[in-house]
């Protein structure tokens, strides 16, 4: 399903008010950025996996990959402005041919440097050197492990994935990641394996910590609980399983006005593989570029216009403000 078809489906829900109406009634319009603290760079949609919940629709058949000139411009923007976090995502960012060069250059800027890796590549061929490369460049590794049970996790990500992730996490632990006294950070992302919201982040973190340690001798730093947004392959799943309307109703009924104040788009700018700019990775997948007089391409970067831009919203935004709120770094309220 392309972006316009998805937006049509998201816009055709009669049972709940539009997201715009909902935040207008809560006196939260216009929704405006506060600053750019995080530059999230999606370096491509090609991935070795094709997870069922993927909002990117990433997979081995995708071709989109960020070019060197766009990556260079990202570095130039980061050098010129005090953006505290560089967040590299994908697809599988490791599959971008310029990945290691970019990470090395980004590391020299001494910001918080995140790489979102599914970890399964790190156990294969030339990618085996990446755990040591990450450690040398003080990369904060964020990986997805939707459940601590192998069967449930693999139902979302594919057979055998859990086993490979555990193997890679053991190697990262061996290098110091996630270990007490080490500054090397390993975080895990939990996504519900189904049509429901994530539970309490603290409660889930406790379970993950206990089960991964006792079952696999694995340690990590933080657990980020992310709500699945009705985009991409996850939208396909909701429609095919007959859960779409109930799930959108759940998101609307769980609306948390405090989470609106803390949405990640207020402090994040997302860069697409071709250099287009978006308020977040979700807007990127729906082809909703930044708007309201702000430049929509990295080559035209203008901090004045972008740092306080009005955010482009649509009904998928309910996902980030439901319950405890959701962001690329987990719950946004009451954590």
């Amino acid at each position, binding site marked *: 399903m392309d972006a316009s078809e998805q937006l049509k489906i998201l816009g055709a829900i009669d049972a709940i008010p539009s997201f715009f109406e909902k935040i207008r009634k809560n006196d939260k319009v216009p929704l405006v950025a506060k600053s750019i603290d995080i530059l999230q760079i999606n370096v491509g949609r090609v991935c070795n996996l094709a997870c069922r919940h993927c909002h990117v629709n990433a997979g081995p058949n995708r071709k989109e990959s960020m070019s060197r000139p766009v990556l260079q411009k990202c570095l130039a923007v980061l050098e010129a402005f005090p953006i505290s976090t560089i967040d590299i995502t994908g697809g599988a960012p490791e599959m971008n041919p310029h990945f290691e060069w970019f990470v090395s250059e980004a590391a020299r800027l001494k910001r918080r440097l995140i790489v979102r890796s599914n970890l399964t590549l790190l156990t294969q061929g030339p990618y085996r050197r990446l755990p040591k490369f990450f450690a040398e460049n003080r990369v904060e590794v964020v990986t997805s492990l939707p459940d601590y049970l192998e069967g449930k996790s693999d139902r979302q990500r594919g057979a055998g994935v859990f086993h490979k992730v555990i193997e890679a996490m053991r190697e990262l632990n061996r290098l110091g990641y996630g270990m007490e006294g080490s500054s090397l950070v390993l975080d895990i992302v939990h996504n*519900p394996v189904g049509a429901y919201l*994530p*539970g*309490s982040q603290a*409660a889930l973190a406790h*379970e*993950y910590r206990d089960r991964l340690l006792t079952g696999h001798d694995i340690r990590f730093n933080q657990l980020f609980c992310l709500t699945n947004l009705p985009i991409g392959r996850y939208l396909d799943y909701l429609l095919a399983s007959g859960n779409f309307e109930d799930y959108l109703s759940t998101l609307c009924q769980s609306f948390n006005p405090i989470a609106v104040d803390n949405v990640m788009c207020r402090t994040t700018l997302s860069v697409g593989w071709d250099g287009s700019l978006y308020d977040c990775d979700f807007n990127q997948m729906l082809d909703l570029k930044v708007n309201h007089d702000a430049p929509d391409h990295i080559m035209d970067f203008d901090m004045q216009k972008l740092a306080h831009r009005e955010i482009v919203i649509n009904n998928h935004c309910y996902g980030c403000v439901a319950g405890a709120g959701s962001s690329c770094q987990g719950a946004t309220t009451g954590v």
Partner: protein
Amino acid sequence: MSYYEPKDLADFPNIGEWAAEQGNTFFEYYGAATGAGKLTEREKSLIALTVAMTQNCPYCIDAYTTKCLSLGVSDEEMMEAAHVGAAMMAGVTLAHTTQMRKIIKKKEM
């Protein structure tokens, strides 16, 4: 048509209608009793789910199955909890045969 409609679960916050003070008191107690304490939220959610099934409340079964899923409780764990409930209900029934057996022994020649 059923007497129960799934969408009515969303009406639960309004059960204090026409008795606001009692409704508010109930919700305060409910929140305190079901929130994490010496027992974790996970343990309490499993207890709540089991009670919901033994008491046949479809709203609570819906709400607490979803809550257990959201807290990472597995299918097998939930089913084990259901069997605890079933065993308790069977045991409660059988425990009351004590009274029946006492009456039989008294009244039967």
